[in-house]
């Protein structure tokens, strides 16, 4: 299991591994939005929570189809499925590796991008917390979508269509945490719901992903 995690991380950091793709996208979005909208701090501060969350979500989406497609193409997915590692575990590790290479960097860079969007200072803490709590759900749900579309050629479009609706609750509650934080209101309810979605996804979806993967490999 650890070996699989280390391999996936090593592959992500090597040439062509796709590490930084999501991060670059997030950065570009946060830089371009003020240029497109105009530099008024009030406007930007109002939309900053939503923009940052939408950006994080799309950045996650960008690298989803790599989770299984590359392993499927070179045959290692077949070999992994016949290896003594439970497929549920392998799927969870893949989701974890995706989060470590996509979600975690987004969490860490988000305060800097908040600065670009004039995010009110009270909201920084909640931005980081909500992303840290919410992005694991994005990776786990995305892994499920990737498992569903693994055998398909050019399955990226279908993958986005399948996964986006499942991302909506995370987006709604995540952005709500940040906007309430920015206004100085209590954030308990949306944060609890966000954590609940993540916990539920992490608990249930690896089993669904592994099952779907077994069917797709037949």
């Amino acid at each position, binding site marked *: 299991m650890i070996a699989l995690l280390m391999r996936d991380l090593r592959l992500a950091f090597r040439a062509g591994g796709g590490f930084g793709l999501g991060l670059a996208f997030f950065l570009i979005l946060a830089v371009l939005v003020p240029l497109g909208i105009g530099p008024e701090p009030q406007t930007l501060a109002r939309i900053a929570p939503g923009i940052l969350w939408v950006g994080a979500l799309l950045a996650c989406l960008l690298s989803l189809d790599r989770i299984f497609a590359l392993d499927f193409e070179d*045959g*290692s997915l077949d070999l992994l499925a016949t290896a003594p590692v439970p497929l549920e575990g392998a799927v969870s590790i893949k989701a974890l590796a995706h989060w470590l290479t996509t979600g975690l960097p987004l969490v860490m860079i988000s305060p800097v991008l908040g600065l670009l969007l004039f995010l009110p200072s009270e909201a920084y803490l909640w931005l980081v917390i909500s992303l840290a709590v919410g992005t694991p759900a994005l990776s786990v749900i995305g892994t499920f979508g990737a498992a569903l579309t693994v055998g398909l050629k050019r399955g990226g479009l279908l993958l986005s269509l399948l996964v986006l609706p499942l991302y909506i609750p995370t987006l709604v509650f995540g952005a709500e945490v940040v906007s309430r934080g920015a206004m100085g209101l209590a954030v308990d309810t949306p944060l609890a719901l966000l954590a609940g979605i993540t916990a539920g996804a992490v608990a249930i979806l690896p089993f669904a992903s592994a099952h779907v993967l077994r069917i797709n490999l037949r």
Partner: protein
Amino acid sequence: MGLNVTDLACARGGLAMLEGVSFSLSSGAALVLRGPNGCGKTTLLRTLAGLQPALAGEIDCPPDAIAYAAHADGLKATLSVAENLRFWAAIYGTSDIDTALDQMNLRALAGRAAQNLSAGQKRRLGLARLMVTGRPVWVLDEPTVSLDVASVALFGDIVRHHLAGGGMAVIATHIDLGLPEAEILDLSRFKARFPQAGTGDFDEAFL
């Protein structure tokens, strides 16, 4: 310790390919599958490996005994030869990759990235993966594709060594591996007959 297959039927893409396949292997024995393209060799091997369920019949084999090698070698292009092998060794809970490197004549290539290997060298690495699994039953799909004559002989020796150590092998191949002791099974005998039109439930067509 043995692999017993009785009356196995398997399908590809929802279409029955083979039926009534029976054979048994005991320790130290090898089985070579032959048959024309599309007769179901890969389908049978995937069924044996547990990647797809059998339509009927039984595969009697101790759990966690089978190591499967497909057409694709499952190599990561940006990892080196040693890193690729070490990964699979870790997955199978073994740690000795040196024997496999030496026996497959990969020692000199150990530090090279898999993307810079020739097709035959990749194949050798894919076969070295089998040796680090430490599993007794090798299920091999066309293992000698793109290997040169010397490497085929090398591979024959390794299979013989594996058999001598009490292992088993099921190999789908078109060429002579130099394994005279191996039993040969011609799969074209087991071709599934198409179900008669009009029988069967109408709904089944949509399942």
